[in-house]
Each structure stands twice: as C-alpha cells, then as structure tokens.
C-alpha cells in the first residue's frame, strides 16, 4: 500500500490536504470533478493510449490502474537491428578489403 502511495505521489504530486478519496471501484458512471488548482497531466498506458487527468483524485485512480506519465514509445526496434547488422557487415567488408590489399 505504501509503495502504491509513493508511486501515486511520484506521478501526481503530493496528495492535497482535506481530500477524501471516494470509492470509485469499477463504477462506469463516476464523474471526476475538475480541480482548478491541479495542473493537468497526460498519462499513458502500456499500449501508448493517453488520457488527460484534471484532478489529483483522477490521476491517482489512473496510476493505480497502471497508467504513468511516461510514454512508452514504440521504438522501431526492427530498424535498429537492420542498422546494427548493416554496420557490422560493412565493417567486415572494409577490414577484409584492407587485409587483401595489405597482403598484395
């Protein structure tokens, strides 16, 4: 529980005083009330979906559900692999050509 609170604090900031956390559960009709004193935040889930939260309560609710302020960008890993391998192969050919020239 403490770890969870720390996590929420890291993402959403310190819990404002006099705020009571309502029991939201899985209520689909629950409406979060905007808090003008809260700076809106963008939160992202693992698939890169984003949501803007406008209150500390809303933010804490999403963080509990696994959302974070860090966008887990879909890195084009397959392109990196192509780049790394091309470099290795190029290095091989250059060194091979140098070897051949040196031996001649």
């Amino acid at each position, binding site marked *: 529980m403490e770890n969870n609170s720390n996590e929420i604090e890291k993402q959403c900031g310190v819990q404002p005083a006099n705020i009571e956390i309502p029991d939201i559960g899985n209520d689909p009709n629950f409406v979060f009330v905007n808090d003008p004193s809260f700076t809106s935040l963008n939160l992202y889930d693992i698939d890169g979906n984003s949501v803007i939260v406008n209150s500390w309560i809303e933010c804490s609710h999403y963080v509990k*559900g696994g959302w974070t302020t860090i966008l887990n960008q879909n890195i084009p890993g*397959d392109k990196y692999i*192509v780049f790394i391998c091309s470099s290795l*192969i190029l290095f091989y050919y250059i060194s091979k050509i140098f070897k051949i020239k040196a031996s001649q």
Partner: protein
Amino acid sequence: MKQRNKNLVLIVLIASVLILPFSVSDKDDYREPKFVQDSSIGYYQSTTCGISFAEVLSKNINNTNNLYFNNNAYPGTECFGKVTGLDKVNNVLIVSIGTNPSINLLLQSVLYILIILLIKPRQRVSPLGESLFIITFRSGLLSLLFTFQHLSEARFYERTNKYFLTTSSFNNYYLIGIFLIYFFIFLALTELSNSRESVLLNYSPYAFLFVGTFVGTNINFYILILCFFGLKGLLMKKYNSYINMIYGFFSVIWITFNYSSDNFFDADKLRGFINSANNDASLYFWIVTFYLLMNGFYYLYTICDIDLEKIKQSLIFSGTGVVIFGLLGAAYPPLNFINFFLFGQNKRGMRELTSIAGNTWRGFSASAETIGEFFAFIILFYVIFYLNKNITLTKADYFMLPIVGYGLFRSNNFAAVSALVIFTIIFVFNTKINNPKYRKLLFRSMIFSSATLAIFYVMSFNYEFLSTGLLFEISLHSNFFTNSDNYINFLNIEKYFNEKDLGTLLFLEDNFSKASSSYLFLVNLFTTEINIPLIPNVVAVISMISIFINRTEMWGIFFAKYSPTIGESLFGSGPLQMSDYLYRHPVRLDVPSEKLQSLFLPHSSIFDILIFYGLIGLVILSFFTFRIFYKSEYIGNDAKYLLGFLIINIFKSDSLLYISSIILFFLIISIITKKKKEYV
C-alpha cells in the same frame, strides 16, 4: 597476441555480451527497482520496459520469496533485458524479462562465435583465403534460406516476435533484419572456420552443454554451422554422390506426395530442430536444410583430425557443466534464466531438485533418456580408451568423473546404466582376456545366465499377456467404443481380448475405420494363419520387448497415432516432419486428464526414423550402420563398443530427435572410420 591473452580478452567479451544487454536501462528516469513481493506486483505491472534484469537482481539478492524469471519473447527491442511484468501464480512470483527473438538471434550467435574463438586455431590460413565473391555468395544463399523459414513457418514466428511481418517490400525491416543477422553470422563463421574447421569435431560434445537453440526461434546454432560447411563442401565438390542421390530420390517423393494441412506443432521441447508446420514451403525448407546438414557432416568428416584427448576433455567438461549448471539453475532462479539464454536451452531448466523435476536435467536435455545416455557414454568412453591407453587420466578427471556419475544416477536411466555395465563387461572380456578358451567360456556363461534370467522373467507372466500386451495398449488409445467413461471403454476392449476376438472388436461401432493403419497392419500380422513352429510371431516379440523395457504404453500410443499411407510408410513424411503424425489421426488417449495435453513422442528413435524416412529409409540407415560395424578396413574398433552402446539405447529413446545426439553419433562414426594415421 599470445593465445592466453587472447582468451582473456575473449572471456571479457563473452561476459560483456552476456551481462550488458540485461543491465542497460535509463538511470535518469524515476523508475527504480523494488523488492519483488505481493505489494510490488502493481508497480512492476505498470512500470514495464524500464527496469533492467540486473537492477531487479540488485534489489532482490536476499529475496526468499518463491521467484521465477520468465522469458517473454514477444515484446519489442526496447524491452530487451528489462522487466515486462510481474504476476503471482500458485504462490510463485513470476518476473517476466523481455527477450526479443531478433536480438536473441544476434546476441546468442555472437556469444557462440566468441566461444568458438576460444578454440586454438590449427591451420595456417592464407590472408587472401577465399574470394570475397565466394564468401558473399555462400553467406547470401544461406541467409536467404534461413530467412525463408520465417515465411514457411509463419505460424511459429508470428507468436514469438512482435515485429513479424511477411509482406514483400523494402519496408519489411523484420525480414531484412533477419536476413542481415544471418548474413553477419555466416560471414563470422567464414572467418573463424578457416583456421579451426579441422579440429571442430573434437569439441562437438559441447553440444550437450551449449544446446544452441535461439530463444524464441525454431532454429539451432549447430544447424547453421553444419549447413555452412555443407554448402562449403558442395561448392568445393567434397560430397558423397551416393548419399546425395538417395536423398534426392526421397526428396522427390516427399514433395510429390506431401499432404499439406493446417496442422501446427508448437515444437515444444524439440524447438530448434523440428518442422513446426505442415505446408509445402516448410517441407522445402527442411529438405534443403537437412541436405546441407548431411553434407556439412560429410565435409567435416573429410577434413577432421581426430584427437581422443581433446574429445575426452570436451566430453568430461560438457558432462560436468550440465550437472553443475543444472544444479545451480535449480537452486538460483536468476541463474536458471541466464542458463536458458546462454546455453540456448529448448525448455527452461529444472526448478527444483525433487526426484521428478530434478531427474531429467531438463533444459540441458529435453529427455532423461538422452542425458542419461550421454553421461553413461562419457564413462564408457573413459573405460574403453583408458584401458587401451589411448587417453590419460588427469587430476581433473578424477574430480569430474564422479560428478558425471552423479548426473547418471539422477537421470534415473536404468537402461543406460545396464547398457554401460554390459558393454564394459563385453569390452573387458574381449580385450583383456587373451586366452580365447577362457574368453569363450566367460561369454557363454554370461549368455547362459542372461537367458536363464530372461526365461524366469517370461515365466512370471503368462504368454497371452506378453504377446498381446502391445495390441491391447494400442486399442486402449485408439478411438474405439467412444463412451465418455474411459473405464467402460477399457472393459469393452478387455472383453474382446479375453475372448481372443480382435475381428469383432474391429467390426463393432465402426472401430475398423477408427483404427490407425499401423494398428491394422499389426493385427493382420498377429492373426496371420501362417504359423512357423518354434518361431514366435513378430508382433508378439515386439510386444514382449516393449513390456521388458517398459515401453508398452508409449509404443501403444505411437501405433494408435501412426497412420501412414503406403507411400509414407515406405518413404516417410520428410525430414523432421512430425505434425502429421501428432495430429492427423484422431485418437482417444487413455491417460490421466492432466496429461492429455502433453507431448507424446514415439519413445524409440527407430519409430522416429519410420515417421521421417519410412521403412526404406530405416533399411538404408541400418545398412550403412552395419557396414561400419563389419567393414574390416576400419581401425577404430574400440569405438564400435560406443556405437553399439548408442544404438542399443536409441531403441527405447527419442534421442535422434535432438541435434546433440546426432552429433555424438557422427563423432563416433568418425572415430571408427578414420584411419589411424589421421588421428592426431
């Protein structure tokens, strides 16, 4: 640079390739590792791909919770070596670590290439070596072949790699990346093989320690090496025309009569050396791959310098390594994960040391039989070549041999132990007793006592049970009498067996059409009217053997499933093509419900050969094997005991389904058939 210093540099490089990818993470983000426990599940589930494996370990050195580090192949490269989730299942906290297959292919190859570089070069190679054109042509061709596997076995790869894409375009970075990785591997193999290829075979027993299967793929490093040498041999015209012609003939038949289907085999413990699909493209891939693999063996055979001391070292280090790393992996979950990656295991290593989980050295070997055979083989190798003064015993050997003995003990392989004892006795009688009179007497008394024991054993059962045990077992696993209660089916089948009325059994409830073709063939053989006095029926003999060696159930399942056409029974389904055998013929296994989804392999390499190469293939392979035994010009006679030992064992194990066992076979054949002057 001196070899010693070179090795030091290589070891540092190997450690770096192993450690760095699992340690890299953004240290500036606020995502810190936490102690793995129930309360941190939410944290790790929401903080994915940010905390490295090494970071988690640093926070959990003293963690006494039941941890398991799972390899999660599907996530992308950004998650490689990092935590992709934490779950709790049955009181086990499962930490998933990202292991993208494309990166695995590259990293594991680099690791194995660096390890091969530890082998001292033997030949002096001209700096010019082969022409760049030849190197490029060979590497390109092989890379195309292995990239093609990703298309032919698409169902396997789409499950394991996030980037998987089959479109034919220059934007398909997945396929281009795979091609380039293979291209780099073959270029590297070219460089290191030139100066080491003649001694590689002496190190081949390491295939039991470094299993070589790439995580998340259905390919094995040894296949790449052997195909590389295969193509090299073909281009240099070092091949055996007879073998290639026979194989070509078989290939035409496999391709012509192939029945494509949607059957998919997830490869399970055979991953890396099995056809996961059953389509034309996958058949072409494995036909060509196996062709190159055979030629690779042949090429290595023609150039190898056999060194028994080096082989001894490789055997003992490999055997000891399997035991020690197996135990360490069972005791320490992080090492279990590292073992899987470093050694390229087909399946994760054993997680506990209880008699069931701990007896198979699972991971290093997919089956208890295979690893038991290997441990026993090492001991027999020592016995034979030490007694004949071909090898010496060092202090390290005295230390490591008991470890291998412990491995054999824990593998629970009674057959391997028995075969070890029998072959040791035969060897000692044959070579150490010079008086032929005494030798004959000892052999006769041995045969007499064995025969007496066998007769007493047979007498303890009734002949009825022994001769029909296998057919009864096949009937139980066939789809007969489809009552929902297996016990009622059992009683029905038992009734007709007691009445010796197999005809009615097959006639009722359409059982005839539900029976496999191999079952019907066995029933025909068993009920034939031709009866030669004193010669037992062949089905009865197979049945007796299956009961003696405790294979009735497994062979029963095999014959219940094995339903080939006439063509398949003669020529097989093609190399490593098993999905038809596994899924084509419907059966109803009479096994506990929790085992219904298990993989039931034939449990005899003879049956494996039947599935792949048919009866004619089996006869041809047997002919070549017996030729090795009986051709007098061969000098490595002592190694024939080892070959005999392996052959006896494969009757009751699936060892030939594993590349490491095939390599061991090939090594022994090379030792036997190489002329003495070719020994180092």
